[in-house]
Protein backbone atom coordinates (compact mmCIF):
# COMPACT_ATOMS: atom_id res chain seq x y z
CA UNK A 1 0.00 0.00 0.00
CA UNK A 2 1.56 3.24 -1.03
CA UNK A 3 1.51 6.34 1.13
CA UNK A 4 -0.82 9.07 0.09
CA UNK A 5 1.04 12.35 -0.26
CA UNK A 6 -2.02 14.33 -1.14
CA UNK A 7 -5.29 13.64 0.61
CA UNK A 8 -8.52 13.55 -1.40
CA UNK A 9 -9.27 17.07 -0.18
CA UNK A 10 -5.98 18.29 -1.68
CA UNK A 11 -3.94 18.63 1.53
CA UNK A 12 -0.39 17.40 1.93
CA UNK A 13 0.97 15.45 4.88
CA UNK A 14 1.62 18.61 6.88
CA UNK A 15 -1.65 20.26 5.94
CA UNK A 16 -0.31 22.51 3.19
CA UNK A 17 -1.72 23.00 -0.28
CA UNK A 18 0.51 21.93 -3.18
CA UNK A 19 1.68 25.49 -3.97
CA UNK A 20 2.18 26.62 -0.39
CA UNK A 21 5.63 27.16 1.05
CA UNK A 22 6.45 26.37 4.66
CA UNK A 23 6.44 28.93 7.42
CA UNK A 24 9.52 31.15 7.33
CA UNK A 25 11.11 32.90 10.27
CA UNK A 26 14.53 34.53 10.38
CA UNK A 27 16.70 36.73 12.53
CA UNK A 28 19.86 38.54 11.49
CA UNK A 29 22.89 39.75 13.40
CA UNK A 30 23.06 37.10 16.09
CA UNK A 31 26.83 36.95 16.51
CA UNK A 32 28.66 40.20 17.26
CA UNK A 33 32.03 38.73 16.24
CA UNK A 34 30.90 37.66 12.79
CA UNK A 35 30.61 40.29 10.07
CA UNK A 36 27.10 39.04 9.38
CA UNK A 37 24.88 36.18 10.44
CA UNK A 38 21.39 34.81 10.05
CA UNK A 39 19.28 32.19 11.77
CA UNK A 40 16.72 30.83 9.31
CA UNK A 41 13.75 28.51 9.70
CA UNK A 42 11.86 27.05 6.78
CA UNK A 43 9.22 24.85 8.38
CA UNK A 44 11.15 22.45 10.59
CA UNK A 45 14.43 22.96 8.77
CA UNK A 46 16.64 25.25 10.84
CA UNK A 47 19.98 26.63 9.72
CA UNK A 48 22.50 29.20 10.91
CA UNK A 49 24.77 30.96 8.43
CA UNK A 50 27.67 33.18 9.48
CA UNK A 51 29.68 35.40 7.17
CA UNK A 52 33.19 36.73 7.82
CA UNK A 53 34.76 39.39 5.69
CA UNK A 54 35.75 40.73 3.31
CA UNK A 55 39.03 40.32 5.12
CA UNK A 56 42.67 39.55 4.47
CA UNK A 57 43.23 36.22 2.78
CA UNK A 58 44.32 33.65 5.35
CA UNK A 59 44.27 30.46 3.34
CA UNK A 60 44.67 29.80 -0.31
CA UNK A 61 45.60 32.39 -2.87
CA UNK A 62 44.31 35.90 -3.04
CA UNK A 63 43.05 37.06 -6.40
CA UNK A 64 44.05 40.36 -7.91
CA UNK A 65 40.97 42.35 -8.76
CA UNK A 66 38.37 40.41 -6.81
CA UNK A 67 37.43 38.73 -3.55
CA UNK A 68 37.49 34.95 -3.06
CA UNK A 69 34.34 33.37 -1.65
CA UNK A 70 34.84 30.31 0.55
CA UNK A 71 31.79 28.34 1.62
CA UNK A 72 31.47 25.54 4.14
CA UNK A 73 28.31 23.53 4.71
CA UNK A 74 27.97 21.18 7.66
CA UNK A 75 25.19 19.36 9.46
CA UNK A 76 25.02 19.00 13.21
CA UNK A 77 25.08 15.43 14.52
CA UNK A 78 21.64 15.97 16.05
CA UNK A 79 20.14 17.50 12.89
CA UNK A 80 18.41 14.38 11.61
CA UNK A 81 16.22 11.74 13.24
CA UNK A 82 19.21 9.52 13.97
CA UNK A 83 22.22 11.02 15.67
CA UNK A 84 25.07 10.64 13.23
CA UNK A 85 28.61 11.96 13.67
CA UNK A 86 29.50 13.75 10.46
CA UNK A 87 32.73 15.25 9.30
CA UNK A 88 32.79 18.31 7.11
CA UNK A 89 34.57 16.32 4.46
CA UNK A 90 31.81 13.96 3.44
CA UNK A 91 30.74 14.08 -0.17
CA UNK A 92 27.32 15.59 0.32
CA UNK A 93 28.64 18.44 2.45
CA UNK A 94 31.38 19.18 -0.05
CA UNK A 95 28.91 19.17 -2.91
CA UNK A 96 26.61 21.60 -1.17
CA UNK A 97 29.56 23.79 -0.13
CA UNK A 98 30.56 24.08 -3.77
CA UNK A 99 26.96 24.75 -4.74
CA UNK A 100 26.70 27.60 -2.26
CA UNK A 101 29.94 29.08 -3.50
CA UNK A 102 29.01 28.97 -7.17
CA UNK A 103 25.55 30.38 -6.58
CA UNK A 104 26.73 33.22 -4.37
CA UNK A 105 29.42 34.12 -6.91
CA UNK A 106 26.64 35.11 -9.29
CA UNK A 107 25.35 37.84 -6.98
CA UNK A 108 28.18 39.10 -4.80
CA UNK A 109 29.96 42.13 -6.28
CA UNK A 110 33.39 40.63 -5.76
CA UNK A 111 35.26 43.22 -7.83
CA UNK A 112 34.80 45.75 -5.07
CA UNK A 113 37.16 43.91 -2.72
CA UNK A 114 40.36 42.87 -4.45
CA UNK A 115 42.79 40.59 -2.62
CA UNK A 116 40.33 39.69 0.13
CA UNK A 117 38.28 36.66 1.11
CA UNK A 118 34.67 36.26 2.17
CA UNK A 119 33.92 33.20 4.31
CA UNK A 120 30.41 31.79 4.47
CA UNK A 121 29.74 29.06 7.04
CA UNK A 122 26.41 27.25 6.89
CA UNK A 123 25.37 25.00 9.77
CA UNK A 124 22.22 22.90 9.63
CA UNK A 125 20.92 22.35 13.13
CA UNK A 126 17.67 20.65 12.20
CA UNK A 127 17.06 19.02 8.84
CA UNK A 128 13.58 18.45 7.45
CA UNK A 129 14.15 18.64 3.74
CA UNK A 130 15.37 21.58 1.68
CA UNK A 131 18.50 22.25 3.71
CA UNK A 132 20.46 23.62 0.76
CA UNK A 133 17.58 25.95 -0.08
CA UNK A 134 17.37 27.19 3.50
CA UNK A 135 21.15 27.68 3.53
CA UNK A 136 21.07 29.79 0.36
CA UNK A 137 18.27 31.95 1.70
CA UNK A 138 20.06 32.36 5.01
CA UNK A 139 23.35 33.10 3.23
CA UNK A 140 21.75 35.96 1.29
CA UNK A 141 20.47 37.45 4.53
CA UNK A 142 23.78 36.94 6.31
CA UNK A 143 25.68 38.63 3.46
CA UNK A 144 23.30 41.57 3.67
CA UNK A 145 23.76 41.71 7.41
CA UNK A 146 27.51 41.91 6.79
CA UNK A 147 26.99 44.85 4.47
CA UNK A 148 28.47 43.03 1.48
CA UNK A 149 27.05 44.45 -1.75
CA UNK A 150 24.87 42.08 -3.77
CA UNK A 151 23.37 42.46 -7.24
CA UNK A 152 20.13 40.95 -6.04
CA UNK A 153 18.65 38.58 -3.48
CA UNK A 154 19.24 34.86 -3.97
CA UNK A 155 16.08 33.01 -3.01
CA UNK A 156 15.96 29.26 -3.13
CA UNK A 157 13.07 26.83 -3.17
CA UNK A 158 12.65 23.17 -4.13
CA UNK A 159 9.78 21.57 -5.97
CA UNK A 160 8.76 17.96 -6.61
CA UNK A 161 6.10 15.83 -8.21
CA UNK A 162 4.07 13.30 -6.25
CA UNK A 163 0.61 11.84 -6.80
CA UNK A 164 0.47 13.57 -10.17
CA UNK A 165 0.79 17.01 -8.62
CA UNK A 166 3.68 19.46 -8.61
CA UNK A 167 4.53 20.22 -4.97
CA UNK A 168 6.31 23.32 -3.70
CA UNK A 169 8.90 23.29 -0.89
CA UNK A 170 9.25 19.61 -0.05
CA UNK A 171 9.81 18.44 3.48
CA UNK A 172 11.91 15.39 4.35
CA UNK A 173 9.15 12.80 3.99
CA UNK A 174 8.08 14.11 0.60
CA UNK A 175 11.70 14.40 -0.47
CA UNK A 176 12.49 10.76 0.35
CA UNK A 177 9.38 9.50 -1.40
CA UNK A 178 11.40 8.76 -4.52
CA UNK A 179 9.88 11.42 -6.74
CA UNK A 180 11.86 14.20 -8.43
CA UNK A 181 13.44 16.94 -6.30
CA UNK A 182 14.24 20.19 -8.05
CA UNK A 183 15.93 22.84 -5.90
CA UNK A 184 16.51 26.14 -7.67
CA UNK A 185 18.09 29.47 -6.85
CA UNK A 186 16.23 32.44 -8.24
CA UNK A 187 17.26 36.09 -8.66
CA UNK A 188 13.98 37.96 -8.24
CA UNK A 189 14.78 41.29 -9.87
CA UNK A 190 16.22 39.90 -13.07
CA UNK A 191 13.99 36.83 -13.06
CA UNK A 192 16.97 34.61 -13.75
CA UNK A 193 17.55 31.16 -12.35
CA UNK A 194 21.06 31.13 -10.89
CA UNK A 195 21.16 27.46 -9.91
CA UNK A 196 19.12 24.39 -10.72
CA UNK A 197 19.58 20.81 -9.59
CA UNK A 198 17.49 17.72 -10.02
CA UNK A 199 17.24 14.35 -8.33
CA UNK A 200 15.53 11.39 -9.96
CA UNK A 201 13.94 11.50 -13.40
CA UNK A 202 11.16 13.63 -14.74
CA UNK A 203 9.45 13.60 -18.10
CA UNK A 204 9.76 16.71 -20.26
CA UNK A 205 6.02 17.47 -20.11
CA UNK A 206 6.09 17.76 -16.33
CA UNK A 207 9.45 19.52 -16.09
CA UNK A 208 8.20 23.00 -17.02
CA UNK A 209 5.37 22.73 -14.52
CA UNK A 210 7.67 21.72 -11.70
CA UNK A 211 10.17 24.45 -12.56
CA UNK A 212 7.39 27.02 -12.58
CA UNK A 213 6.18 25.76 -9.19
CA UNK A 214 9.67 26.18 -7.77
CA UNK A 215 9.95 29.71 -9.21
CA UNK A 216 6.59 30.67 -7.74
CA UNK A 217 7.71 29.34 -4.37
CA UNK A 218 10.92 31.35 -4.64
CA UNK A 219 8.93 34.50 -5.41
CA UNK A 220 6.83 33.94 -2.29
CA UNK A 221 9.98 33.54 -0.23
CA UNK A 222 11.43 36.71 -1.77
CA UNK A 223 8.49 38.84 -0.68
CA UNK A 224 8.80 37.52 2.89
CA UNK A 225 12.55 38.10 3.05
CA UNK A 226 12.36 41.51 1.42
CA UNK A 227 9.66 42.68 3.81
CA UNK A 228 11.59 41.40 6.81
CA UNK A 229 14.82 43.11 5.75
CA UNK A 230 13.04 46.41 5.11
CA UNK A 231 11.43 46.24 8.55
CA UNK A 232 14.85 45.81 10.10
CA UNK A 233 16.27 48.82 8.27
CA UNK A 234 13.29 50.90 9.44
CA UNK A 235 13.82 49.83 13.04
CA UNK A 236 17.55 50.51 12.94
CA UNK A 237 16.92 53.91 11.38
CA UNK A 238 14.42 54.72 14.11
CA UNK A 239 16.77 53.68 16.90
CA UNK A 240 19.55 55.71 15.34
CA UNK A 241 17.24 58.69 15.48
CA UNK A 242 17.36 59.51 11.79
CA UNK A 243 14.84 61.93 10.42
Amino acid at each position, binding site marked *: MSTEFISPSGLRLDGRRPHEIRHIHFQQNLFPKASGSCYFEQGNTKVIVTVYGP*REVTRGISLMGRAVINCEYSMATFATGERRPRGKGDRRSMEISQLLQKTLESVVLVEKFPRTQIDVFAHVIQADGGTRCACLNAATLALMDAGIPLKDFVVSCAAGYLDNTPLCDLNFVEDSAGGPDLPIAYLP*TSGNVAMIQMDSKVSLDHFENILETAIQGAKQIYSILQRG*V*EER*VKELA*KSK*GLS
Partner: protein
Amino acid sequence: MQQTTTEQLVIVTPGETIMEDNEGYLLGHGTYLDDDNRVVASKCGIVERISQYISVKPLQSRYMPRDGDVIVGRISKLTHSSWVVDINGYQDAILRLSSVNIATTQRRKTYEDSLNMRALFVEDDVIVAEIMDSKKFVSLQTRSARYGKLSKGIFIKVKPMLIKPSHNRFHTFSFGTEIIIGANGYIFIRQFDPQRERVAKQTNPFSLGHTVKQEEEEKKVNQQPVVNSQEHMINMIRVRNAVAALDKLLLPIHPDTILKVVEASRTLEPKYMIEHEHMLTMTASIRS
Protein backbone atom coordinates in the same frame (compact mmCIF):
# COMPACT_ATOMS: atom_id res chain seq x y z
CA MET B 1 10.16 48.27 -7.96
CA GLN B 2 8.73 49.22 -4.62
CA GLN B 3 10.43 51.68 -2.38
CA THR B 4 9.04 52.27 1.07
CA THR B 5 9.32 55.61 2.80
CA THR B 6 9.51 56.49 6.48
CA GLU B 7 9.36 60.22 6.97
CA GLN B 8 11.14 61.03 3.72
CA LEU B 9 13.55 58.11 4.12
CA VAL B 10 13.80 55.91 1.07
CA ILE B 11 14.70 52.38 2.14
CA VAL B 12 16.02 49.96 -0.46
CA THR B 13 17.13 46.35 -0.59
CA PRO B 14 19.57 44.77 -3.04
CA GLY B 15 18.14 44.50 -6.52
CA GLU B 16 15.75 47.43 -6.19
CA THR B 17 16.00 50.16 -8.79
CA ILE B 18 16.82 53.57 -7.38
CA MET B 19 16.78 55.46 -10.65
CA GLU B 20 15.72 54.46 -14.10
CA ASP B 21 18.57 56.31 -15.76
CA ASN B 22 21.98 57.24 -14.46
CA GLU B 23 22.10 60.44 -16.52
CA GLY B 24 24.77 62.62 -14.94
CA TYR B 25 24.69 60.98 -11.53
CA LEU B 26 27.76 59.86 -9.63
CA LEU B 27 27.34 56.45 -8.08
CA GLY B 28 28.63 55.93 -4.55
CA HIS B 29 28.75 52.98 -2.18
CA GLY B 30 25.88 50.56 -2.14
CA THR B 31 24.84 51.14 -5.76
CA TYR B 32 25.73 49.67 -9.10
CA LEU B 33 24.82 50.19 -12.74
CA ASP B 34 23.04 47.30 -14.40
CA ASP B 35 23.06 46.40 -18.10
CA ASP B 36 20.12 48.68 -18.84
CA ASN B 37 21.83 51.73 -17.32
CA ARG B 38 19.60 51.65 -14.26
CA VAL B 39 20.94 52.64 -10.87
CA VAL B 40 20.33 49.61 -8.64
CA ALA B 41 20.89 49.19 -4.91
CA SER B 42 23.43 46.60 -3.82
CA LYS B 43 23.02 47.02 -0.09
CA CYS B 44 20.12 47.34 2.35
CA GLY B 45 19.88 50.82 3.67
CA ILE B 46 18.75 54.35 3.12
CA VAL B 47 19.25 56.20 -0.16
CA GLU B 48 21.40 59.27 0.26
CA ARG B 49 21.33 61.88 -2.43
CA ILE B 50 23.68 64.85 -2.22
CA SER B 51 23.15 66.87 -5.42
CA GLN B 52 24.46 64.54 -8.15
CA TYR B 53 25.90 61.90 -5.86
CA ILE B 54 23.79 58.85 -4.98
CA SER B 55 24.71 56.22 -2.45
CA VAL B 56 23.00 53.75 -0.16
CA LYS B 57 23.90 54.12 3.47
CA PRO B 58 23.79 50.74 5.16
CA LEU B 59 23.24 50.82 8.86
CA GLN B 60 26.11 48.53 9.64
CA SER B 61 29.32 48.49 7.70
CA ARG B 62 33.05 48.37 8.05
CA TYR B 63 35.15 51.47 8.03
CA MET B 64 35.75 52.94 4.56
CA PRO B 65 39.15 54.69 4.59
CA ARG B 66 39.45 58.26 3.38
CA ASP B 67 42.54 60.37 2.82
CA GLY B 68 43.34 62.57 5.78
CA ASP B 69 41.38 60.57 8.36
CA VAL B 70 43.10 60.18 11.69
CA ILE B 71 42.74 56.62 12.87
CA VAL B 72 43.80 54.32 15.65
CA GLY B 73 45.22 51.01 14.54
CA ARG B 74 46.90 47.89 15.85
CA ILE B 75 50.11 46.51 14.36
CA SER B 76 49.40 43.10 12.99
CA LYS B 77 52.76 42.15 11.49
CA LEU B 78 56.09 43.46 10.24
CA THR B 79 57.62 43.22 6.82
CA HIS B 80 61.12 44.22 5.81
CA SER B 81 60.26 47.87 5.26
CA SER B 82 56.79 48.44 6.68
CA TRP B 83 54.28 47.57 9.36
CA VAL B 84 50.91 46.02 8.50
CA VAL B 85 48.20 47.68 10.58
CA ASP B 86 44.70 46.51 11.39
CA ILE B 87 42.36 49.49 11.00
CA ASN B 88 38.97 47.82 11.18
CA GLY B 89 38.52 48.00 7.43
CA TYR B 90 38.17 45.42 4.70
CA GLN B 91 41.92 45.30 4.36
CA ASP B 92 44.84 45.99 6.61
CA ALA B 93 46.73 49.25 6.08
CA ILE B 94 50.45 49.69 5.54
CA LEU B 95 52.71 52.00 7.53
CA ARG B 96 55.91 52.34 5.60
CA LEU B 97 59.21 52.94 7.31
CA SER B 98 59.61 56.04 5.17
CA SER B 99 56.40 57.46 6.62
CA VAL B 100 57.45 57.56 10.27
CA ASN B 101 59.62 60.02 12.12
CA ILE B 102 62.44 58.51 14.10
CA ALA B 103 63.34 60.62 17.13
CA THR B 104 61.22 63.50 15.84
CA THR B 105 63.27 63.89 12.71
CA GLN B 106 62.44 63.41 9.12
CA ARG B 107 65.39 61.89 7.33
CA ARG B 108 66.11 59.17 4.78
CA LYS B 109 65.93 55.84 6.49
CA THR B 110 69.09 53.80 6.39
CA TYR B 111 69.59 50.09 6.24
CA GLU B 112 70.18 50.06 10.00
CA ASP B 113 66.80 51.65 10.52
CA SER B 114 65.07 48.83 8.71
CA LEU B 115 66.84 46.35 10.95
CA ASN B 116 65.73 48.33 13.96
CA MET B 117 62.05 48.52 13.15
CA ARG B 118 61.16 46.61 16.26
CA ALA B 119 62.51 49.42 18.40
CA LEU B 120 59.66 51.56 17.15
CA PHE B 121 56.60 49.32 16.90
CA VAL B 122 56.09 45.59 17.37
CA GLU B 123 53.07 43.33 16.84
CA ASP B 124 49.97 44.27 18.86
CA ASP B 125 51.14 47.83 19.53
CA VAL B 126 48.36 50.39 19.27
CA ILE B 127 49.17 53.43 17.19
CA VAL B 128 47.49 56.61 16.08
CA ALA B 129 48.21 57.65 12.50
CA GLU B 130 46.81 59.53 9.56
CA ILE B 131 45.69 57.99 6.29
CA MET B 132 47.94 59.19 3.52
CA ASP B 133 46.52 57.42 0.53
CA SER B 134 43.60 55.07 0.16
CA LYS B 135 43.52 54.44 -3.58
CA LYS B 136 44.99 50.99 -4.03
CA PHE B 137 46.55 50.16 -0.70
CA VAL B 138 45.66 52.09 2.40
CA SER B 139 48.84 53.69 3.63
CA LEU B 140 49.42 55.56 6.85
CA GLN B 141 51.85 58.15 8.09
CA THR B 142 52.94 59.19 11.59
CA ARG B 143 54.90 62.29 10.71
CA SER B 144 53.38 64.51 13.36
CA ALA B 145 54.64 64.23 16.92
CA ARG B 146 51.05 63.65 17.98
CA TYR B 147 50.99 60.39 16.12
CA GLY B 148 52.77 57.23 17.09
CA LYS B 149 52.50 54.53 19.69
CA LEU B 150 49.76 54.67 22.29
CA SER B 151 50.24 53.09 25.65
CA LYS B 152 49.06 53.02 29.25
CA GLY B 153 45.44 53.44 28.41
CA ILE B 154 42.25 51.66 27.45
CA PHE B 155 41.44 50.52 23.93
CA ILE B 156 37.83 50.07 22.83
CA LYS B 157 36.24 49.26 19.52
CA VAL B 158 32.91 50.78 18.40
CA LYS B 159 30.83 50.86 15.21
CA PRO B 160 32.47 53.25 12.72
CA MET B 161 29.15 54.71 11.62
CA LEU B 162 28.61 56.26 15.05
CA ILE B 163 31.67 58.47 14.65
CA LYS B 164 30.96 61.78 13.03
CA PRO B 165 33.53 63.51 10.79
CA SER B 166 35.58 65.90 12.86
CA HIS B 167 38.73 67.98 12.55
CA ASN B 168 40.16 67.20 15.93
CA ARG B 169 40.28 63.61 17.02
CA PHE B 170 42.20 64.28 20.22
CA HIS B 171 40.03 65.55 23.01
CA THR B 172 40.80 66.14 26.67
CA PHE B 173 38.10 66.26 29.28
CA SER B 174 38.23 68.70 32.18
CA PHE B 175 38.89 65.87 34.63
CA GLY B 176 42.16 64.99 32.93
CA THR B 177 41.24 62.10 30.67
CA GLU B 178 42.30 62.25 27.05
CA ILE B 179 40.38 60.37 24.39
CA ILE B 180 41.47 59.68 20.83
CA ILE B 181 38.45 58.86 18.67
CA GLY B 182 39.76 57.22 15.53
CA ALA B 183 37.58 57.70 12.47
CA ASN B 184 37.67 53.94 12.01
CA GLY B 185 35.87 53.05 15.22
CA TYR B 186 38.95 52.29 17.31
CA ILE B 187 39.20 54.50 20.37
CA PHE B 188 42.01 54.99 22.88
CA ILE B 189 41.52 56.50 26.30
CA ARG B 190 44.46 57.59 28.41
CA GLN B 191 45.55 60.04 31.02
CA PHE B 192 46.32 63.50 29.69
CA ASP B 193 50.00 64.22 30.07
CA PRO B 194 50.93 67.93 29.90
CA GLN B 195 54.60 67.05 29.43
CA ARG B 196 53.84 65.02 26.37
CA GLU B 197 51.66 67.79 24.95
CA ARG B 198 54.47 70.28 25.39
CA VAL B 199 56.95 68.08 23.55
CA ALA B 200 54.43 67.51 20.79
CA LYS B 201 53.85 71.23 20.39
CA GLN B 202 57.56 72.05 20.45
CA THR B 203 58.68 69.56 17.87
CA ASN B 204 58.13 70.81 14.41
CA PRO B 205 57.37 67.86 12.14
CA PHE B 206 58.75 69.70 9.16
CA SER B 207 62.15 70.44 10.60
CA LEU B 208 64.89 68.86 8.57
CA GLY B 209 67.39 68.50 11.35
CA HIS B 210 67.03 67.95 15.04
CA THR B 211 68.61 69.56 18.01
CA VAL B 212 70.14 67.53 20.78
CA LYS B 213 67.86 69.29 23.26
CA GLN B 214 64.70 68.04 21.56
CA GLU B 215 65.92 64.47 21.45
CA GLU B 216 66.74 64.58 25.14
CA GLU B 217 63.32 65.95 25.98
CA GLU B 218 61.72 63.20 23.97
CA LYS B 219 63.75 60.55 25.81
CA LYS B 220 62.74 62.05 29.17
CA VAL B 221 59.06 61.93 28.33
CA ASN B 222 59.20 58.33 27.20
CA GLN B 223 61.21 57.10 30.13
CA GLN B 224 59.18 58.73 32.87
CA PRO B 225 56.98 56.09 34.40
CA VAL B 226 53.42 57.28 33.85
CA VAL B 227 51.73 56.84 37.15
CA ASN B 228 48.01 56.63 36.74
CA SER B 229 46.57 57.43 40.10
CA GLN B 230 43.43 55.63 41.16
CA GLU B 231 41.30 58.68 40.55
CA HIS B 232 42.64 58.98 37.00
CA MET B 233 42.02 55.30 36.35
CA ILE B 234 38.45 55.50 37.59
CA ASN B 235 37.84 58.45 35.28
CA MET B 236 39.29 56.52 32.35
CA ILE B 237 37.02 53.60 33.15
CA ARG B 238 34.00 55.90 33.32
CA VAL B 239 34.81 57.28 29.89
CA ARG B 240 35.31 53.78 28.53
CA ASN B 241 31.98 52.56 29.89
CA ALA B 242 30.27 55.69 28.59
CA VAL B 243 31.60 54.93 25.12
CA ALA B 244 30.47 51.31 25.43
CA ALA B 245 26.96 52.45 26.38
CA LEU B 246 26.74 54.84 23.42
CA ASP B 247 27.94 52.09 21.11
CA LYS B 248 25.43 49.56 22.44
CA LEU B 249 22.51 51.95 22.02
CA LEU B 250 23.64 53.16 18.58
CA LEU B 251 24.11 56.77 19.65
CA PRO B 252 26.65 59.17 18.14
CA ILE B 253 30.06 59.01 19.79
CA HIS B 254 31.40 62.49 20.26
CA PRO B 255 33.11 64.24 23.18
CA ASP B 256 29.86 66.10 23.99
CA THR B 257 27.76 62.94 24.21
CA ILE B 258 30.48 61.11 26.13
CA LEU B 259 30.70 63.97 28.62
CA LYS B 260 26.91 63.92 29.13
CA VAL B 261 26.95 60.21 29.89
CA VAL B 262 29.94 60.50 32.23
CA GLU B 263 28.30 63.35 34.15
CA ALA B 264 25.07 61.37 34.43
CA SER B 265 27.02 58.42 35.79
CA ARG B 266 28.71 60.22 38.67
CA THR B 267 26.26 58.73 41.16
CA LEU B 268 27.03 55.16 40.07
CA GLU B 269 30.05 53.03 40.60
CA PRO B 270 31.77 52.55 37.22
CA LYS B 271 31.18 48.81 37.18
CA TYR B 272 27.41 49.29 37.16
CA MET B 273 27.55 51.59 34.16
CA ILE B 274 27.49 48.68 31.75
CA GLU B 275 24.22 47.24 33.03
CA HIS B 276 21.39 47.76 30.60
CA GLU B 277 18.97 49.75 32.80
CA HIS B 278 21.73 52.10 33.87
CA MET B 279 22.79 52.53 30.26
CA LEU B 280 19.28 53.65 29.42
CA THR B 281 19.06 56.15 32.28
CA MET B 282 22.49 57.62 31.61
CA THR B 283 21.77 58.19 27.96
CA ALA B 284 18.22 59.45 28.44
CA SER B 285 19.15 63.06 27.71
CA ILE B 286 20.82 62.09 24.44
CA ARG B 287 18.13 59.76 23.22
CA SER B 288 15.29 62.20 23.64
